């Protein structure tokens, strides 16, 4: 029967081995040849857009890359779906946007801020998501 000492060795050994593999895989994933995010395309505007995304907790309602709060639409591929003009209007409007009666906070962003967010979405749109983008976008009908 298993002794306490063996049980402890199993715990410590297993943890160490899996954690080392985990670190190794993480380093591998972010190696240049494995980059699926076109990181060279992250411009200053994209970073500003990401900052706005965070400062206003957009993820508190929307999802992006499938992550967020499921109260408002997924914004991966949103430019393909809606077009930049529509998105700009939603971001800049001083009155609450209310599609089908569900309200969005009226952020009233400046034009520059709206453009930065669009740049951010545009960068997101080109990330290779291992097939998830074909599921979330209505354009997936054509892709399937």
């Amino acid at each position, binding site marked *: 029967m298993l002794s306490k000492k063996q049980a402890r060795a199993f715990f410590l050994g297993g943890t160490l081995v899996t954690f080392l593999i985990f670190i190794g895989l993480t380093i591998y994933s972010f190696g240049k040849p494995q980059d*699926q995010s076109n990181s060279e395309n992250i411009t200053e505007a994209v970073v500003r857009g990401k900052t706005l995304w965070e400062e206003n907790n957009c993820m508190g309602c929307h999802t992006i890359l*499938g992550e*967020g709060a499921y109260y408002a*639409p997924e914004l991966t591929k949103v430019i393909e779906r809606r077009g930049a003009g529509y998105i700009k209007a939603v971001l800049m409007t001083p009155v609450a946007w209310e599609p089908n009666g569900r*309200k969005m906070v009226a952020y009233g962003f400046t034009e520059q801020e709206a453009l930065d967010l669009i740049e951010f979405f545009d960068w997101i749109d080109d990330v290779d998501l291992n097939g998830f983008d074909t599921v979330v976008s209505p354009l997936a009908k054509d892709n399937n």
Partner: protein
Amino acid sequence: MKYKSQKVAYWFFALSMLLFALQIIYGFIMGFAHAGFDGLHDVIPFNTARAVHTNLLVVWLLSGFMGAAYYIIPEEAQRELVSVKLAYVQLISLAVVGVIAIVGYHFNYWEGRKFLEIPRPLDYLVVVNVLLFLGLILVTLFKGKRRTTTALVLSMGLLFAALLYLPGMLPFDSQVMDSFFRWWVVHLWVEGVWELIMGGILSFLLIKLTGVDREVIEKWLYVIVGLTFLSGVLGTGHHYYYIGVNKIWLIVGGIFSALEPLAFLAMALFAVNMYRKGEKKHPNKLALYWTLGAAIVSFIGAGLLGFAHTLPQTNLYTHGTLVTAMHGHLAFWGAYAMIVLAIISYSLPNMTGRKLYESTRGRMAFWMSNIGMIGMTVAFGVAGVVQVYLERKLKMEFMEVQKEIEVHFVVLIICATLFMTGIILYMVDFYKHGRPTDEALETASND
């Protein structure tokens, strides 16, 4: 209660109760908004309610874990806490940071990163607070007469939880990397080191409640936490399937996530077996209910329901839908909320000297909250599956689908009301126990 300083735990538990009550209120705001009644939108928009709801959960659970540690460590180490005064300083600073964060969320003062919304400047205060807590616990442990496995596993869980908070503070320009390392915190907390904390508390409770030999219980504790890390660390991969990183995570995450339920199954079997083996009939049946309940419900919520959508083929469709909320609710309830309620139920009579564990109210609290939460999980599950089907198979628009599933949120609200009634009863029980007292030192013969 064997040491006077254990009384500190009471105030951490009281803070937990207060924050838990607030968490439920914000949950209702979100439930109503989903059902189409968003009258509070201008004051508390959904993203505020959401950040408050999830952060209150984290803070009340942490406060509960800290209280558990302040109760358990002196007893395991067989000495008083090194400083009761500093423990109170730590409690107050935790409450202050928590309140500033929660109030800030109402004024756009946050960092919109799911679960880690606390803004950076406050993050540093959290770090200082947790360091103070760890200092008190670890010094007590190492100055103590004995270092038990239960105490070591619990302390190790708390220490790693603090260390793993740090990757969440790294700044990244890429949303993909941001997301990747955010899961280092969130996943490795809830499916890793928090399970050490849960295991430590569970082991302490089983030793006290069943009377089974410590050596036997602690041996299995190692096996369980071993299984947790073996599956959970690489299981992080299930968050990496579709966020823009290499396909290797589909294989690694898929395989190791499939193993994750094993740790929870082992925990459930372990708890039930120890209960059967135990010859001691501890009179605090209520604490036993919550202890066994935590082990069993966590297997269903975290183990089975987690597995239901971690296979890459399924997750392709369920990623980013309410299916996640279904799993999240029962998992957090079973694994962490119930274990905190278990240690409170066990320790409260010992700290206050009032043995109220025969009350019907206590049992009603257990059954109503559990049945309510299972009902909520089913409502989320049905809403989630319908959402997946309509949105991702039939390609309907997001908001059209949301209209279709509003009715499930009405069911959710009804179940949540039952859940809340149970929790109110639990809190009434908590209140009726009164304050902790040194006189309880003599009266506690059943520790």
